């Protein structure tokens, strides 16, 4: 489906320069990517390669030093409700209940109260938090908080879900469960997902496409299609072969950097 769909998001020549002491580093550096509607793209790379910065540039929280980001051919100039970020540390509004957090976006659009309630109810159900809808974030586990964060973005009709190591702070069991649920949500809503992760396994499990980035300068070195059939079995030989391939490419970019830093 990815091949036939028109490009939703285009990143063209995006570079962000940082001063580090007397040096200047570029992370990301001259990144060109096009992402089709409905694609699930994972970005993986060493810390410092600029993958999180790239995500923040797409979200509109930061501006690139050079280059442009367009969504449906319209340039990104700031945060907007067509793109929603899911942060690793959740960033839920602590004074609002689950339901109020989820209906925050629709409330900004001044929809009629009944419609806001209906949307909130729908997305509370989508992430399976009916019993916890009137709880506050401090009363939820990490996994539940992250579900709320996902629902909050989807309830706002975002076309692109930007996820910055969203499951990094969760225990292994909860992470697996949320990965499964995210795939179901993705299949059901058709939303486009850009997902930053440190885990090769997570990337291969989730993505249609894996972008492998190198650090110093932060470039996209490989753009790999993951052709494995879904649902994917992490213990199958095919899965392992792909995982090993991605891991090998990732470490081959890491090695020279480490050599240089010693």
């Amino acid at each position, binding site marked *: 489906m990815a091949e036939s769909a028109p490009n939703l998001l285009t990143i063209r020549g995006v570079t962000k320069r940082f001063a580090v002491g007397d040096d200047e580093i570029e992370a990301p550096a001259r990144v060109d990517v096009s992402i089709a509607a409905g694609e699930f793209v994972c970005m993986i790379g060493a810390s410092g390669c600029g993958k999180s910065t790239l995500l923040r540039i797409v979200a509109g929280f930061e501006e690139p030093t050079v280059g442009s980001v367009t969504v449906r051919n319209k340039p990104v100039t700031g945060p907007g409700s067509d793109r929603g970020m899911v942060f690793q540390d959740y*960033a839920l509004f602590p004074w609002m209940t689950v339901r109020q957090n989820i209906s*925050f976006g629709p409330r900004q659009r001044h929809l009629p109260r009944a419609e806001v309630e209906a949307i909130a109810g729908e997305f509370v159900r989508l992430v399976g938090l009916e019993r916890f809808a009137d709880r506050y974030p401090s009363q939820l586990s990490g996994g539940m908080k992250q579900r709320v964060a996902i629902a909050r973005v989807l309830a706002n009709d975002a076309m692109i879900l930007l996820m910055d190591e969203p499951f990094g702070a969760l225990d292994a069991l909860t992470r697996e469960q949320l990965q499964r649920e995210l795939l179901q949500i993705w299949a059901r809503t058709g939303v486009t997902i850009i997902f930053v992760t440190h885990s090769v396994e997570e990337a291969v499990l989730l993505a249609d496409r894996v972008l492998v980035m190198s650090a110093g300068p932060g470039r996209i070195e490989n753009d790999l299609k993951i052709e494995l059939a879904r649902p994917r079995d992490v213990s199958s030989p095919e899965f392992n072969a792909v995982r090993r391939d991605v891991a090998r490419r990732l470490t081959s970019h890491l090695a020279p950097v480490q050599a240089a830093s010693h």
Partner: protein
Amino acid sequence: MSEQATALAEAIEPAATEAPRRRRRLQEKLTAIALGAGFPALLVVLWHFAVAYSGTRLIPSPWQVAVMMYDFSFGGVYDDAFSATILTHIWKSMTRVYGGFLMAALIGIPLGLLIGRIKPLRQLLDPTINVLRPIPVTAWLPLSMIFFGLGPNAAIFLVFLGAFYPILLNTTFGVRSVDVRLFEAASMLGCSGSAMFRQVVLPASLPSICNGLRVAHGFAWILIVVGEMTGVPTGLGSVIMDGRTLSRTDLVVTGMIVIGAMGFHHRSHHRGVV
């Protein structure tokens, strides 16, 4: 904790532990009251013996103060200018405290929110505030009497000044210590401008604002006494000042206790709100 475990604990807890927990809480409360009230009682006993053994005439005994308090409240003992006037004095002091305090909150909170959020405004005002803030409010007394004359307005102005800085600074601090991600999250969900202030900045900094209000409340009661010592005929501060002029220390101590009780009342009331 995983979701299942939370749900499980949720299901078991209320029925099994509700009753003992309530009993424990009641016990704790009684202990706190006994300890909290026991210590001042002990102090009163010490006070009584200290006055009795030293034979001083300058400090009233607790009994003399109790009599004065009765007369101040209900009259019928001394029947002088202070008999049965307690409510008038409390009322006058309260109107000034609340007048100054409310003004300070009405200006301090919005200004603090703006300073915390808008960098140029912070750069514009911060140095001035930092120079004005360390000046003790009492140092403004001569100028405030020139500005507002002898009377309640000078007292209200002092209360305003004393309450203004803690409210402003705590509000600014509250805004600045909000996780930046919350603002990012709000802006990506389509929230901006004044909606951002109402829906995110204000609630996110509310704990800190309440802290500022609580501190300001205390200052307001301290400063009302100073303000009322400058020649207003009524108010708890003027009662203490009159007691000094008339060498009636029982009246001075009575006034002090009433102010303490007012402050205590407000403190506990405020904790409930926060």
